[in-house]
Each structure stands twice: as C-alpha cells, then as structure tokens.
C-alpha cells in the first residue's frame, strides 16, 4: 500500500504516544501497529523502513524497528 499514507498513519499514532515519554511511547506505538494493522500494511511499512524509512518520526522508526524484529508475517497470499 502507498507508503505515504502509512507513514502518515504511523506518525499520527506516534504523536499520541509522544506525550507519554520515550520509554512508554516506543512500545506503545509498536503494540498499536501490531494489534491493528493488517499484514500487507505491516509488510509495506517494514519495506519502507528497510528502504531508509524517510519521513518516519524517530519514536515511530524505533518502534517499527523493534516490531519488525519480533514479527513473523505470513507470506503474501
């Protein structure tokens, strides 16, 4: 899916958690994306992260990096 839209959505999630401080924000963002994004959205944002992750806020980038490490997505069917 269009990375622009996903980057926007991820950063929007990031903005909510920002005020809870870095230590809560990073796992909060990761958990939210884990719980609510469909695999193709996750695959697309991870691919964008691998490609440098331009446009992602720092907390969001960190959250996605840790989420990617712990996620095994089913192959695109």
């Amino acid at each position: 899916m269009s990375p622009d839209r996903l980057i926007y959505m991820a950063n929007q999630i990031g903005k909510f958690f920002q005020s809870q401080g870095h230590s809560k924000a990073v796992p909060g963002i990761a958990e939210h994306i884990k719980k609510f994004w469909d695999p193709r959205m996750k695959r697309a944002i991870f691919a964008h992260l691998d490609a440098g992750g331009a446009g992602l806020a720092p907390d969001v980038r960190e959250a996605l990096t840790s989420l990617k490490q712990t996620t095994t997505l089913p192959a695109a069917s």
Partner: protein
Amino acid sequence: MSLIEEIDYGTPRSKSETMVTLTIDGNQVTVPEGTSIMRAAMDAGHQIPKLCATDMVDAFGSCRLCLVEIEGRAGTPASCTTPVMPGLVVHTQTERLKKLRKGVMELYISDHPLDCLTCGANGDCELQDMAGAVGLRDVRYGYEGENHVFARSHGCDNDHWMPKDESNPYFSYDPSKCIVCSRCVRACEEVQGTFALTISGRGFDSRVSPGMSESFLGSECVSCGACVQACPTATLTEKSVIEIGQPEHSVVTTCAYCGVGCAFKAEMRGEEVVRMVPYKDGKANRGHSCVKGRFAWGYTNHKERILKPMIRDRIEDPWKEVSWDEAFSFAAAKMRGIQQKYGRDAIGGITSSRCTNEETYLVQKLIRAGFGNNNVDTCARVCHSPTGYGLATTFGTSAGTQDFDSVEDTDVVVVIGANPASAHPVFASRLKKRLRQGAKLIVIDPRRTEMVEAPHVKALHLPLMPGTNVAVMTAIAHVIVTEGLVNETFVRERCDWTEFEEWAAFVAQPNNSPEATAILTGVDPKDLREAARTYATGGNGAIYYGLGVTEHSQGSTTVIAIANLAMATGNIGRPGVGVNPLRGQNNVQGSCDMGSFPHELPGYRHISGDAVRDQFEALWNVKLNPEPGLRIPNMFDAAVEGTFMGIYVQGEDILQSDPNTSHVVAALSAMECVIVHDLFLNETANYAHVFLPGSSFLEKDGTFTNAERRIQRVRKVMTPKNGMADWEVTIGLAKAMGFEMTYSHPSEIMDEIAALTPTFAGVSYAKLDELGSVQWPCNEKAPEGTPVMHIDGFVRGKGKFVVTEYVATDERTGPRYPLLLTTGRILSQYNVGAQTRRTENVVWHAEDRLEIHPHDAEQRGVRDGDWVRLKSRAGETTLRAEITDRVAPGVVYTTFHHPDTQANVITTDYSDWATNCPEYKVTAVQISPSNGPSDWQKAYDAQARQSRRIVPAEAAE
C-alpha cells in the same frame, strides 16, 4: 396471538419506598406513598371511570369522572389527584357517584358527534368505553345547543366548529371530536418536552391549539406521536388506522432506527402493519417514541424496494434479475476467482449496524471462517470505533456504563458532540424531563443545538471550534485538578494512582488552562471553569456524547479524555453518573459486540489470542488467521492499490456514508466483485455486480443491542417480501462458496454466540422472552444482566488515566478554505436517508441545507435559500443556504441525508489516529454563490441513472 393491551393505571407510578395501606371497595390495598387513589384502585383491579387521566402524564383532575367517596371526608374528590393515606376507606361506586358520573357524561356527549360506527377510533375509544361504564342511556340536553360538532347550526355557520387538520402526514386532528381533556397538551409537555400544544381560549371556547393556532405541520410539533397515544377519542388518530381499521393482533419488537432501541408493539391486521405503538414496558423508551420509529416505517413496502436478486458482469451493464441460486453461484464464483487470482486476503466484507446481532455474527463468521481472512469491518468504523478503543483502554470495556433510566438520578448532564433532540429523540425527552426537574445541563458543541434551545431548559453552552475537543476536555481537567476538585478517595481506591499522578501533572500545566487554550477553542474561559466546577461538584455527573467526539483525528483521545474526567470526579459505577456514548444506529453496539472489527472476535477478544481462537476453531471446525484484517478505509486504499478486489456489503451504503466520495468511487470501481445486500439500490449498488435483496426488521427474527448494552428481540410480523431473511441470504452465499452453516432459526445462532462469548453466556431467546430484555454482561455472575457497569471496580482492574495531549488536525483553514464545515443530523431523517427519504418524513426535510452565519453569508453575497457552492480540498458540491446564528462565524454546518447533495464529496481522508474513524466533523471549505448542481453532481446523477437500469427476468412459461 392477540392485541397486547397494557394496563393504564391512570397516574404515574410513585417511586416512594414508604408503603401505605388503605381500603378500597372493601379490599385492603398497599401501595407506595404518593400513589393516587385511582392508581391504588387499579392495582386492586378496580377501574375507576376516567377520561383526563392516563399514567403517561401527571394527574390533572379536569374531567370529574373519577370521583370517589371517602369515609369521613366531605364531597366527592377526584381519585386521580387525591393521594392515598393510611387507613382511608374509599368507595368507588355509590348511588351519588353513579348519578354524578352520568351527568358528566351527558354533558360530554351532548357536544360530541354520534358517528361511532364510522369513526376511526371505533373499538379504541375511551369516551365510548366510559359512556358504557357509567350506563349512559340518554342525553337530556339534546344535541341542538351550542356545540363544536356541526359546521352549520340553526341555518348559520357555526363559529365554534373547526375543520380537520390533515397537515401532518401521519395523523389527523379532528377538533369536532375533542373533549379538551388536555391529555395531548400534557403529553407534549411532560413526555416529549416540546411544548408545541396548548389550550387556547377559556370555558366553552377552549381548544387544543398547536402553537399559536397553527396547523400541526406548521407548528413546533415534532410528530413524536405522544399526543396521538394520549388522546382518548378520535380527535388525534393515526391516518393508517383511519384507512385500514383497528388492529387485531400485536407483536412486541424493537425499532430499527437509532441506538436508543425503543420497544414497539407492531399492531397488525394479518400481515399488514396498522400502526407502531411504543411499548410501555420497553425499558429503553418507557412508552415513548419519535417520528421515525412511530411513523416512518413506510419504506418497508416502498415501491423502490428490490425483491429479486440481480447480477451483472460490468457496472455499465443493466441489472439482470435472476434466481437466488444463480445469484449465489455467480457471486461465489467471482469471489473465489478473485482469491485464486489475487490471494486469499483479496476479499472481505462489511457487517451492518442495521442488521441483527445474529446476522452480523454470521457475516463475520463467513469472512473469518469461509473467506479465510479477517477483512471484516462494520459501519461503526466510521462512527464509534474510537469509543471502543478509548473505553477499552481506560475502563476495560467497549461500551457505555449506564442504562437510560440512570438519567433520572443525574444532577449534572454534560452533552458533548451530540444532539440527542435530533438524533436520539426519545432519550432526549427523558433527559429534558430530568432537566425540568432541576438537573443542570452543559452542552459542548460548535453549534447551538436543539438541546440548547429546548423549552424550559437552561443550558451552559460552550461553543467550541470544530476539532478542539481534546483541548477543551483537558482544560476542564485542568480546572478540576488545579482547583482541588478531584475525588481522591475514588481515584485512590479504583484507579492506578501513579498513572493518575502523571495525568494530573500533565493537565495542570499552565498551557492546558482554559485561559491559555481559549485562543484555539474559542470557548470563554469563565464559562469553561463554571462547567468544570459544576460537573465536579454538582452531584451525580453524567457525560453523554456522540459522533462530534469520535469523528475527529483525535476521536479516540477525546474518548479517553472523557473517561479521565469521569474517573477523576468519581462519576462512575452507580446510577446517575457514567460515560455514555449515544450510538447512531440501532445495532452499532451489537455489531461491535459480534466481532465485526477486523482485529477482534465476538466479545472484544483480539484475534491474536491463541486460547480464544482455539475455542472458535474448535466450534467452527476451521483454522483462523491470527493477523488482524483490513479496516474499511484500509480496504479502499488496498482496492486502489490492487490487492483488495471483492467485497460483500450487508446493509450499509459506504458510497454515501464514507468520507471523500471520489476516493470511495475509485476503490469500488477498482474492485472486480462488489456484492450489495440491501433493501434498495443504494448508492454503493451503482458500483455493484451482485445485488442480494434484503429483508426489513418486520420480516425477520433476531436481536438488536442498543446504546445501553440492552439486548432486545426483533420479532417477525410478516413473511419476508424478498423471500428470505437476511441471515438466510448469508447462509446461502456461504454455502455457494463451500462453507456450510446450518441453523434453522436465529435463536440457534444466539445460542452459539452465548457459547463462545463470556459476556453473552446467559443470553438466550427464552430469557429474552421472559425478561423482555437484558443488558450484557449477562452470565453466571449477572444472570439478569448488568444495568450499571464498573460498580465495585473497573472491568480492566484499576481504571487507567492516560495523558491526552491536544494535537491539531492537519485539516487546516487558510486563505482558500477559510471556513470549517461540520456535519450532523436532523430529527426526521436518519443517516444516509435510505429509509426515511422513502417515507412521508420528507415533508420536514426534503433537502440538505448549509447553515451559515449571517456575517459569513453577507461577506459572500449569499442570501437565505440561495444555491451555494461548497468546496473543500477533496471536492465540491452545491446546496441551498440557510442563514442562522446557530453556527458561529467561521463555521458552517450541513446534514448528510440526501445523495444528491453528497456532503461526503467534501469530507477528507483524515481519520482518527487509533482507529481510522474518518474526520467527518472538520473540513476546511469555501462557500460561493452558485447557479445549481456542480459538474460532479451532474456526472454522478447520470452514472446513477445509467447504473440503476433493470432487465426483468423473463416470465417462466
């Protein structure tokens, strides 16, 4: 089956717990203190004759028919206005009383037409009954004297006579039959709270008058039907009764309009509905109704209803009527074909908040188990999904905390982003009743709503700029924390104290004060402080909110902020308080409960949980996908991208109801199979390949769950006109796709739901028949349901405070789009109007209008009623302007009930950060004068006409 006739006790129930014993006609009767003698007698089974009394309104004492004699007291007091006292000895029938009553009836009948045989109320007339009850055999006064009955008397025009008022489309007012008992006037005041009716004149000149002797339609009357229900004669009668005659049986069912969930008696003659009458034992509505549920059911047999399945290969083709089997196999082949070509996850579906729990459950089951993915979502996505997220996070349950009765114990009501008088009218009436008793009202809304302007209600109105809810809620929290108004005992006992402290420190920051945020919110800091103090210290504080809270970029944050406020002030866990989302559609709560969201199974349990999935897998005998599916906006994005190509939409018109119409059009056009399952060829059907005709709520069995978590039965009163109830259609489609579901009745579906969902464990049709309704959780711990939640502690354990920082939406005004558009509803229309536009309700609202402040209108040269062009970054449309100061300068407002306006051409792709609930309530726009429909509207109309062509099936030889 017979006609259900509820007992009329004559006067309302007393809530006193002190009991009083007296003797009526030789029987000892014990009733609560404050009960009238009339009601006590009825309790004992003795019906005292009456005309002006009915238990929906307070006693009035005008008809003088209910007189009684009390030993040791002089005279013959009216039993309706005389309260019981210990030891009273009452006689309801004596020679003296008989004579008096007969005299009273003689006077009434001397000024009443004697056309009983041809009268619309024949068989349902209390005047006729009372004439019988008192043994009236003769009218000594004759009928020739002064009267209101005849147009001409003694060869001249009769000035007392008034013609019928037929202006209301649903009921007629025949003044010649009026006995001026004032029941209608009192019902309008006490039950509905509109005060549209009055008695004009005095003595013999007394007349029921809508407004200042206006017609019913021209007056403030909102056509709720309470006056018609209250009328003891044929003066106010449903036109359907006049046309058809009296009903012979009735069935209790649940209204299919808003989330209040009013219980109605469908009064029938055979399979024809004669009228819908609100059911007194309905625990959501307590015998009241609004114009939609009471009268606007004509859509169920509207000529535009589609009754045969239809298919087509391309949306440019006309529809072809086919058999059910052909439609199912056509749809199944297309859907399976898409999965083979694009992958298992390339299809999905949308459940409907207008369908029953059982139907919704089946659709999500078909998708999860039959399609093999979790691409299921529901229209709650675009309305209350932030409620689910916000309340689950803070309290642990995705639902309102109270029942509607709770409002009777409320002292301070805060209404945020909701206009119950228009969108939840029966709840609004109950609320206004409490307000007239002295409860305080705070309204937080950009617009001066009907709630603010309600008669005999004084509201503290905080008119905020659209999009600044979080700033306002946090400023209220700031006042509560910094002025020491927190209920510390409650917070220490029930909530996580560390999280509270973090939150309190955050809201106390000077930048969150009402004074600092006023520049953003536009709310007077003085008013905001008063509101905060009133809510925190005014007794039981209850918050009711609607889509003006949820449909924002920060929708979930505002829900959390509301929950924070309720916890900080201890306004949770008892009658009269709580956090209450007002649900838009009849079964929004139910569709969410039934696992319609892509990330959770029924009962709000995340799909990734192995234990929960195991349970479903065992019963459904299939492997479930542990990854969440696509939400509606994600489906559209994926469709445009080419990875989501087929959809089954039950009972929802996504093209009209979802934001940024051109994006939705692009998504639907990109899909290879769109299956629409609906009553009508709705706007989405213009882009569909398969049309499966739906059944109305009158044609099927099932349950709806209203905004107070109340599960109520929907009962079939007629054979489905399309041949199949919706649950049977889903089963047929599933079967064609190779997924068998076998149920012979919706009760079996509910049994499966109960077996799989802990909060529904105790629910069955047998229990619903026995109790009338139950509020979930209903299980071993609460076998009769749970009216108020979180009584001894929060469902999640400790209540969770979460910091709510205001983040402005990215939808900004600027030189090109200087105004903010916000949207809402109107009383007579419902949602996208698919139902109400196909009823007489159009007399009240035939088109969507744009409300604009006189200042903004003048700057743009716009006059009242002019066509204006409404343009945003997403699109443009035209509609007519209504100039009003209900909206502030800089804010414009419209409704979204009509497809030819297409308000959602204007709304944008911005959405709630947590749930993707669209930001309908804030769109930057510009207004300019216009000559008529925009190019978009013309093109849309042409496409719609083209798309709706139907080739009928050839008649079988």
